[in-house]
């Protein structure tokens, strides 16, 4: 199954490269995404299918990430068809090839059980997604792509060094030199401490760069700001989740090596720094997409803080990966529609989105309430579970700091969002009628929103079991 999930999208990407028609090519996206989704579900329900050898198998955290990113990609692919048809002036061959190939590398990240292979897969996602940022071919998008490529490559190179250090930690301790995840986990208590510490720092920097944790986040507002909304959704929901999975595996190894306390301190520092940076830059942010980029930085911070708190917050953290991923899909896709209708993403021009675009505007507003942790949406449950974890672990200071930052973000983000959706639509925009809400561009957003709402009201039993499995797997109980 692993090979199928990795090779099938590659094949589709190859076909996309061969198709000449700019008009029909976008249809390949759902054609690739729907069978991939089917394979994901099949692998999830049939235990036999989740194993393709020692290096490629789905463990509970891998299953979670594969599931959620597949869902996000499916909705994005449905949205992409009308989007790319609307933007038929732009050649979309490279864009579609890279989008579909991302599905392949993403699958590899979730299946891989070898730290070296995980690194290769994450680096591949970096490279395959760089052309996506460049879709608009403007000077700004070149600048954003360059920053992403340079910062991302240097960051991910640190992760490679960290992976090597991890292997050296076994070598130095006289163990078998391997980067096989299961073997390292088994040997973890005997690993050389100093090399493990160094490895963790480098891996945190490396995968943290891809997640967009402060202070390695500088590429993120530029990349998210200059790329189409759909790319933002793939980045903020997909790539960050994949990088988080890689970090999760490293965290797991360190905890198994009884280094939880050391790791937790670093994670908390980076997490709070990210949240604080995001909160600060979100205040008076006038650019909607950049605002969402900072929101993504904030939520990566929340995830890392959740890990830092430890086992009591683990359920919430894993749930938050899912809720964040889906909500980011809602936000970026709806902001993509707003951007197109207004021809701008700056709130100097974007006003009265609720009137001009009743569907996208209201989804954007609801997405804002969801992502800032208002009930009854999914992120409320997961953010609350993390808070609960902090208090039950008797980390009151961390819990209250986290709460204060959440509040700050709510205020900062709220001011920008409200001024975009309320008020009167500028006359210049109403006259032009570049783009109006339609069901085809709206339905994927509605679908994602429905899932976000569902997770806030009720977590389906299979998902709850999967989350509990993952918590048990990582918590070592």
């Amino acid at each position, binding site marked *: 199954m692993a090979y199928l999930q990795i090779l099938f999208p590659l094949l589709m990407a190859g076909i996309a490269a061969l198709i000449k028609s700019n008009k029909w090519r976008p249809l390949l996206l759902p054609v690739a995404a729907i069978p991939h989704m089917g394979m994901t579900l099949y692998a999830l329900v049939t235990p036999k299918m989740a194993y393709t050898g020692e290096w490629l198998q789905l463990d509970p955290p891998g299953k979670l990430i594969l599931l959620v990113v597949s869902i996000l990609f499916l909705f994005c692919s449905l949205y992409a068809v009308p989007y790319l048809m609307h933007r038929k002036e732009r050649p979309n061959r490279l864009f579609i090839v890279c989008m579909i190939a991302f599905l392949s590398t993403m699958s590899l990240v979730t299946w891989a059980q*070898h730290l*070296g*292979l995980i*690194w*290769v897969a994450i*680096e*591949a996602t*970096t*490279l395959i997604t*760089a*052309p996506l940022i*460049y879709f608009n071919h403007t*000077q*700004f998008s*070149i*600048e*954003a*792509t*360059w*920053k992403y*490529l*340079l910062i991302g*490559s*240097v960051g991910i*190179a640190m992760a*490679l*060094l960290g992976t*090597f250090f991890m*292997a*050296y930690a*076994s*070598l*130095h301790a*006289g163990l078998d*030199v*391997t*980067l096989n995840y299961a073997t390292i986990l088994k040997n973890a208590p005997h690993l*050389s401490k*100093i*090399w493990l510490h*160094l490895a963790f720092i480098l891996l945190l920097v490396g995968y943290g760069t891809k997640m967009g944790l402060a202070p390695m986040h500088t590429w993120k*507002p*530029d990349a998210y*700001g*200059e790329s189409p909304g759909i790319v933002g959704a793939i980045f903020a929901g997909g790539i960050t989740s994949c990088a988080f999975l890689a970090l999760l595996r490293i965290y797991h190894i360190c905890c198994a090596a009884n280094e939880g306390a050391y790791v937790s301190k670093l994670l908390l520092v980076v997490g709070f720094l990210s949240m604080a940076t995001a909160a600060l*830059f979100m205040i008076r942010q006038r650019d909607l997409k*950049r605002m969402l980029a900072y929101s993504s930085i904030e939520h990566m911070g929340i995830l890392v803080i959740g890990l830092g708190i430890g086992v009591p917050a683990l359920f919430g953290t894993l749930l938050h990966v899912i809720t964040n991923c889906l909500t980011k899909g809602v936000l970026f896709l709806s902001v993509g529609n707003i951007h197109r209708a207004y021809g701008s993403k700056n709130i100097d021009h974007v006003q009265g989105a609720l009137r001009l675009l009743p569907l996208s505007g209201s989804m954007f507003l609801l997405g804002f309430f969801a992502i800032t942790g208002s009930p009854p949406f999914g992120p409320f449950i997961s953010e609350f579970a993390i808070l609960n974890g902090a208090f039950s672990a008797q980390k009151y200071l961390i819990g209250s700091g986290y709460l204060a930052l959440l509040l700050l973000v709510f205020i900062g983000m709220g001011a920008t969002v409200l001024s975009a959706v309320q008020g009167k639509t500028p006359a210049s925009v109403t006259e032009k009628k570049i783009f109006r809400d339609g069901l085809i561009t709206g339905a994927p957003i509605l679908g994602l929103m429905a899932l976000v709402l569902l997770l806030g009201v009720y977590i389906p039993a299979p998902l709850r079991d999967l989350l509990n499995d993952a918590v048990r797997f990582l918590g070592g109980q």
Partner: protein
Amino acid sequence: MTNILNAILVIILVLNLFTLGTSRILTVIRIVAIQGFLLGFLPLLAHNHFSLASILIVLTTMILKAFVIPSMMSQALRDAQIKREFEPLIGILPSIILGALATVFALLFTSHIPLAQEHTGTLIVPSSIATILIGFIIVTTRFKALSQVIGYLILENGIFIFGLLLMGAMPMIVEMGVLLDLFVAIFVSCIIISKINKSFSSMDTRILSSLKE
């Protein structure tokens, strides 16, 4: 074997300093190509064993690092019609001194972390760390986009040197994956550089500063 290994590592360290010491970008590309060629030999010297897999990796490394990547970069350089790195953030002489300090730091650092018995006699760890640091120096202090890519390549070379300690931990497929990723990274960067060059008529990354708060 260890002596030859160390000798090559010393040459690599000296080449690092040369890259800092010249502003002609074509010369830097050539130096890095030589460095890549020498790096290719190291796995054979470090392990004394010649399996088919290891020879395949050695050959791929050499072809990629000594020929393919440098020729891609010199092509990008020709297209851009520039020759030199003007006004780096810090001048040529100070950056050589900085590079030398980085090398000393790497040696000191290595003497403070515990190494496995069989690795204490070689220069692998210090030269790896020194090369990585020098890669960093180039990425951060040079402003031409191509120079930054060269810095990244040197940084990768440093990591490659560290990888010599771990033959066996990285199965061949993963090693090949790493090399493929490196190749694609440089390839994509070169394309973006040519785009930068086309739309800004310059390769200076200081002009890439319109996106900020």
